[in-house]
């Protein structure tokens, strides 16, 4: 398994209400062990997965949003968020939590993992992949 493929995990659902977001993150974490070229996309209600200040006390479901901040340690450093999906939901980049990674090619400088892209850029990103898993 020396071949490296480009994997894109597409997150389209809100973090709670259904299990898709959590079980997507579980695939990403397991998949990180396979040394592939991994990207995550957040669009439609999926953009809510990255919002900051999530509190699930009232619904008795685990708040898994801090896990996104650990993705950098798994060398998962490309989180693409669709601008139009944010706009349609009245969200801005300021509503998203900070997710950072250390760039080993740049003296371990801390850099943001989240990149906001337009819908047409997102289409290009998708077209560029070998494997797209949609959740």
């Amino acid at each position, binding site marked *: 398994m020396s*071949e490296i493929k480009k994997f894109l995990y597409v997150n389209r659902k809100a973090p709670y209400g259904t299990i898709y977001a959590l*079980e997507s993150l579980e695939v990403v974490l*397991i998949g990180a062990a*396979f040394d592939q070229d991994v990207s995550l996309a957040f669009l439609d209600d999926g953009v809510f997965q990255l919002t900051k200040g999530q509190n699930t006390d009232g619904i008795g479901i685990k708040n898994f949003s801090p896990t996104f901040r650990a993705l950098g340690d798994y060398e998962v450093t490309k989180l693409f968020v669709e601008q139009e999906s944010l706009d349609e939901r009245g969200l801005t980049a300021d509503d998203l939590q900070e997710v950072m990674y250390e760039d080993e090619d740049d003296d371990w400088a801390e850099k943001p993992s989240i990149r906001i892209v337009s819908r047409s850029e997102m289409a290009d990103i998708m077209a560029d992949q070998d494997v797209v898993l949609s*959740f």
Partner: protein
Amino acid sequence: MKFGIVISEGPYTHQAADTAYHFVKSAIAKGHEVARVFFYHDGVNVSSRLTVPPQDERHIQNNWTTLAKEHGVDLVVCIAAAQRRGLLDENEAKRQGKDASNIAEGFRISGLGQLIEMGIQTDRLVTFGD
């Protein structure tokens, strides 16, 4: 062509497992290889051998079990998703101290690594879900 299949919705509620079944049968009939089918999210419920649909309805679990027998298709059920939803094979039932197991013949329980591996090793990964 070598296909990998993901089924991510439950049987009868959703057509995903049916459509995937017809896709896999057709692909094999046309000479393609289906290396593996991976059941995830509610898709794991397809693997329950306690499934008893009305007699005039299709039997989704039996369809897959037969397909596995006839064509050697590897049917893999995600262990984490399965355990959440009360689906255990004999080993897991024993390990978890449960009095019964319910995974049908032809299916096997394994980890998410099998999904990633399938993405790496096949030419196309096709998801049937929502």
